[in-house]
């Protein structure tokens, strides 16, 4: 039964996305290929002193990305540090330095790992003018980088890969803003809170005093999902009734997370002149997503514990208004897209169900991944796939008409080195360095054994992939984890971006090799299968020993018994 329900839910999402796919993908294609600036954009370029008609070399583009991100970190840090003197601070004091830095880095990298507890740290101004703004621009940065890489494939013999400032402005102003405004209003209509009201103090039936927070939730909620950011207005994130009150908002939020990453494959296809190339990438994303979702539903519905099964599956940590299927769909979406929003507590999932969420991230978040980040992630994996299998057609490998030579391979290989090494080494160091080990065991972990280990693995996986969701149950606000996770967040964001932009530069310089019947086809089912296989073997298998010690050891125990 549950499978029929799961299938229908999956099909519903797929159908709606299918309807959006073409218009949104084509719209983004127009946004990033049009040579006309809108009037307010001209105004913006004038202020920041950018010649929108001038392309940038990959180095200049990269300087733009890094410079802008650094500025954003500083601004956000400062804003939190002077919160006390800002209006609408809801009485909160200035945020302490380390925490402010952690939060700034986390939001600028599109991670939205929340070491702070929103309910007791941030007032409306920082949330609205600081975090919400970053939710827009950090997403726009990801899209810009992805578009730059696609240009590397689409353009021939070009020294430039586009203009970062133009891409950033257009992604924000023409793409994210309009959708956010429209969908924000719809969310409000469906019951998501949006006000600047004071908090409400009530006495509950049991006689306790309770403070009910208010605030501009919907405006942040919409971009939190649309920009695959994930940082909730409330600590409870999307399981909070003000953020995600009902099935309709739940459905909309899932769609918001998926729409841009999915439709970007169409944009890619349009830009390289073959929409089927986009379908192939999308195909691999759908396969990975579908399998993962199926596994979660299975793990949660058929527990090895007979009592849980009698109650209809593992419902611990899940909202009754969403149930297993819609929690699983939301969780799969959130961890597959680098969003990190949660409408259920991932730590409470069965070991194997929770493992699937980890795996979604461990695959490099490519199914379909964060806005932009997912696309460039899967393009890099496509390059690796073409390199491994492409030789078997008797030609040196090429993807989308560009030769994959030593330089391209260097970038691609370093790209797929970063994340697994950050995660595995981070986890290992946490247990190998004596003081870290002590901090982990004494402060951070409440669970011992395999499950506690899984929580640490999840934290590093989430940070290095800029996901931001947490396997709750771990106390992350310790000097060790704050530092290491902060480091992982920065490494996991900017090293890959630098490599991708360099890759775009070297691809753009090449001429396009015309496709012949001797060319390896990258727009058919065989390639989708290969891509899935390579992503699985290169990314997931790396984590096999780690997963064996964590969720596998815990989850398979029950199967044996």
């Amino acid at each position, binding site marked *: 039964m549950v499978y029929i329900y799961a299938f229908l839910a999956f099909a519903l999402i797929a159908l709606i996305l299918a309807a959006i796919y073409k218009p949104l993908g084509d719209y983004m294609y127009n946004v990033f290929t049009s040579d006309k600036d809108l009037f307010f954009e001209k105004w913006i370029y004038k202020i920041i002193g950018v010649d929108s008609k001038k392309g940038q070399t990959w180095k200049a583009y990269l300087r733009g990305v890094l410079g802008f991100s650094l500025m954003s970190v500083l601004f956000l840090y400062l804003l939190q540090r002077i919160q006390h003197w800002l209006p609408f601070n809801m009485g909160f004091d200035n945020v302490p330095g380390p925490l402010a830095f952690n939060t700034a880095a986390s939001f600028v990298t599109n991670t939205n790992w929340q070491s702070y507890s929103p309910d007791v740290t941030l007032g409306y101004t920082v949330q609205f003018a600081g975090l919400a703004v970053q939710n827009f621009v950090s997403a726009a940065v990801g899209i810009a980088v992805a578009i730059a890489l696609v240009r590397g494939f689409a353009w021939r013999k070009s020294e430039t890969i586009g203009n970062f400032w133009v891409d950033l402005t257009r992604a924000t102003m023409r793409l994210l803003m309009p959708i956010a405004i429209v969908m924000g209003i719809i969310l409000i209509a469906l019951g998501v809170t949006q006000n600047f009201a004071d908090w409400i103090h009530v006495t509950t039936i049991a006689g306790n005093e309770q403070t009910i927070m208010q605030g501009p939730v919907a405006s942040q909620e919409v971009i939190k999902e649309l920009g695959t950011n994930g940082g909730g207005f409330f600590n409870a994130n999307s399981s909070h009734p003000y953020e995600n009150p009902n099935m309709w908002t739940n459905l909309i939020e899932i769609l918001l997370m998926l729409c841009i990453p999915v439709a970007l494959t169409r944009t890619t296809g349009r830009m390289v002149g073959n929409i089927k190339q986009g379908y192939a990438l999308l195909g691999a994303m759908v396969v990975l997503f579908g399998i993962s979702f199926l596994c979660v539903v299975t793990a949660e519905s058929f527990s090895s514990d007979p009592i849980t099964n009698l109650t209809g599956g593992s419902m611990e940590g899940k909202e009754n208004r969403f149930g297993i299927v819609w929690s699983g769909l939301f969780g799969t979406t959130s961890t597959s897209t680098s969003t990190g929003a949660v409408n259920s507590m991932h730590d409470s999932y069965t070991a194997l169900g929770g493992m699937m969420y980890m795996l979604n991230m461990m695959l490099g978040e490519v199914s379909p991944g964060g806005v932009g980040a997912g696309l460039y992630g899967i393009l890099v994996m496509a390059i690796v796939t073409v390199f491994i299998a492409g030789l078997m*057609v008797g030609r040196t490998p090429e993807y989308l008409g560009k030769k994959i030579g030593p330089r*391209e391979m260097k970038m691609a290989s370093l790209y797929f080195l970063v994340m697994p090494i950050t995660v595995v080494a981070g986890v290992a160091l946490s247990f190998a360095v004596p003081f870290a080990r002590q901090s982990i065991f004494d402060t951070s972990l409440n669970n011992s054994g395999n499950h506690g280990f899984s929580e640490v693995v999840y934290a590093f996986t989430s940070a290095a992939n800029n996901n931001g969701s947490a396997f709750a149950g771990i106390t992350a606000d310790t000097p060790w984890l704050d530092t290491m996770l902060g480091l992982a967040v920065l490494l996991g964001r900017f090293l890959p971006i630098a490599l991708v932009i360099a890759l775009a530069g070297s691809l753009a310089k090449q*001429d396009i090799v015309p496709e012949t*019947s001797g060319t390896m086809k990258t727009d058919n089912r*065989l390639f989708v299968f290969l891509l899935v296989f390579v992503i699985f073997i290169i990314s997931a298998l790396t984590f096999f020993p*780690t997963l064996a010690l964590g969720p*596998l050891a815990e989850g398979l125990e029950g199967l044996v018994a």
Partner: protein
Amino acid sequence: MSAVMSNAETNDVIKDVKKSNNKSLGEMLIKSLPDAFRKFDPRNMWHNPVMFIVWVGAAFLTLLGIAQLFDPAELSQGEPVFFTWIVAVVLWLTVLFANLAEAVAEGRGKAQADALRKTRTTTPARVVVGYDEQNDPDARGPEKGIGSATIQEIPSSDLKQGDVVVVSEGELIPGDGDIISGIASVDESAITGESAPVIRESGGDRSAVTGGTRVLSDRIVVRITQKPGESFVDKMIALVEGANRQKTPNEIALDVLLSSLTIIFLVVVLCINPQASSVDSSVSLTVLIALLVCLIPTTIGALLSAIGIAGMDRLVQRNVLATSGRAIEAAGDVTTLLLDKTGTITYGNRQASEFHALPGVSHDEIVKAAALSSLADSTPEGQSIVALAKEDGFNVQDVPGSTAVAFTAETRMSGLDLPNGDRIRKGATSAVEAWIEKEGGVMSTEVRDALHDRVASISGQGGTPLVVAEQYANGEAKVLGVVQLKDVVKKGLRERFEDMRKMGIRTVMVTGDNPLTAAAIAKEAGVDDFIAEAKPEDKLAYIKKEQAKGQLVAMTGDGTNDAPALAQSDVGVAMNSGTSAAKEAGNMVDLDSDPTKLIDIVEIGKQLLITRGALTTFSIANDIAKYFAIIPAMFMMQFPGLGVLNIMGLHSPLSAVLSAIIFNAIIIVMLIPLALKGVKYRAEASEKILGRNLSIYGLGGIIAPFIGIWIIDLFVRLIPGF
């Protein structure tokens, strides 16, 4: 030095070489063992990061094994001491097998190099000092005592570029150069293995001679074009030996990928024990190193250089020398083939295929006239006319007293003057028409139109029209008809071009014919495009145009004026019979001077890349099974749940680990023949090739180790203690 080999000896050596390549694998492996052991030198291993890791692991386990002998209780980590030893031995064997693969591949080249080296012996060279090109091009002066030039005998090793030498019958040519005077038959069997002598002469496209070959007749003057120590044979030796073998771009890129995978797995393995410590578990160093060796791509790492060397060797086997491995890779990528019509697409000669009489002329008349006029014509075209006439039943006999009129560039006709005063002429339309007019003949409009129609239709079919006319003794001159000469397309080429098309390669025919004729032959041969009335500049322009579209172009050439096009093309195959300039410009030389071989070269390039890809895929796909063998083995004792992952049902943790690394080592040896021979290649569309290779090497790569490890485990479990 007089130790110059005779031709017979050289041929023997070459036969030996070819024989040695057919030796059984076992023999080759044993013969290459000493070389394989020599490669254990860490300075050598360093160049192969993947195998270097195995080397380090083996060395470390050997030390650990020794240490365990002294303090078994502390160091053995609960495993029997001999376990470390066995694992160490298997790892050493893994390295040995990898070295063996390379040594075997190199060994084949070495034998070839030895044979070549014997031709490179020093011979005396007779240098003309003060060579006077103007007055004494033949350099006869010194011998006859005329002029100021003298002849000086120096060892060939002292020859400089630009020296002029004289070589006479029976002597060895002392160095590479171009003939500047004279003609000679030369025995080039030392480098080509072909015993039939070839003609080399000054001035044409066949002026290049190679040092170490022997002049069989006549006397030539040669200007040396090589620098000392950089002769063609020197280059050949370096090539077949792989002495300065440089990694190709694709090999470098693959190395990057393999190194990255190695780094990832190294980090993963290093991090296992710290992670395991969180759940109070730990894994022995021996097992960790075994896991690492299993995970890093040792199969392809071990065979990669052997694949490259073997690819080069396959070219050498077909008498093609590539100046770099890069050229072979480029050959696999070629998308446009420029093929000379004559000799490649058609047989060198045209054949008469039909007689066409004009209105008012009987068939017999034209046949008889054409045959008669061709009797004295020794060209293949002429002979084919006589032969065709014979088929028609005209067995013409030579008429005594007649005079043959030879073809001249001026008249552009040949013919026969009969004793009775009749004159028969045959030639190109315009030439014959001009002749008729000059002789006062008048052609009616009807005849003229018929002639022109006929000529156009023959040209349109790719034939060459040969107009036959006769002036009778009474002075009346008229056109009799037209002989249709036809280019004969080589058998099987059409299918071959069809295959090329499936592989995504466009074939372009280059010909001096007019566009009409060219189009017809192109259609008959099934090429995709043609360049008619081609001059060398046209070739160059065409290549540039194709390259601007992103195509990779391959071509063959021999003349000096082909050199720019050869240099411009991505794969330029120079004919060995060609000039030195052409040979310098190309990146391959075909010793047999067979332009058709271009197609083989492309296939060899593709086969090399496919083999590399297939073994890479196989190697990486193997990891799945190895993980399933070793991961449960590492933690099953503590976490029984992980026993579920032991899907092969391996006997014990120790036997699982050992079986996995034994499989890992054995698979290298088993794949050596494949690496040397190359994956079977068929000309097909990319999807078909990919689909088939994926099911063999991808799917096979996943399944084979599951079965292999399971079988090995059945034996390993019999060892006491496992």
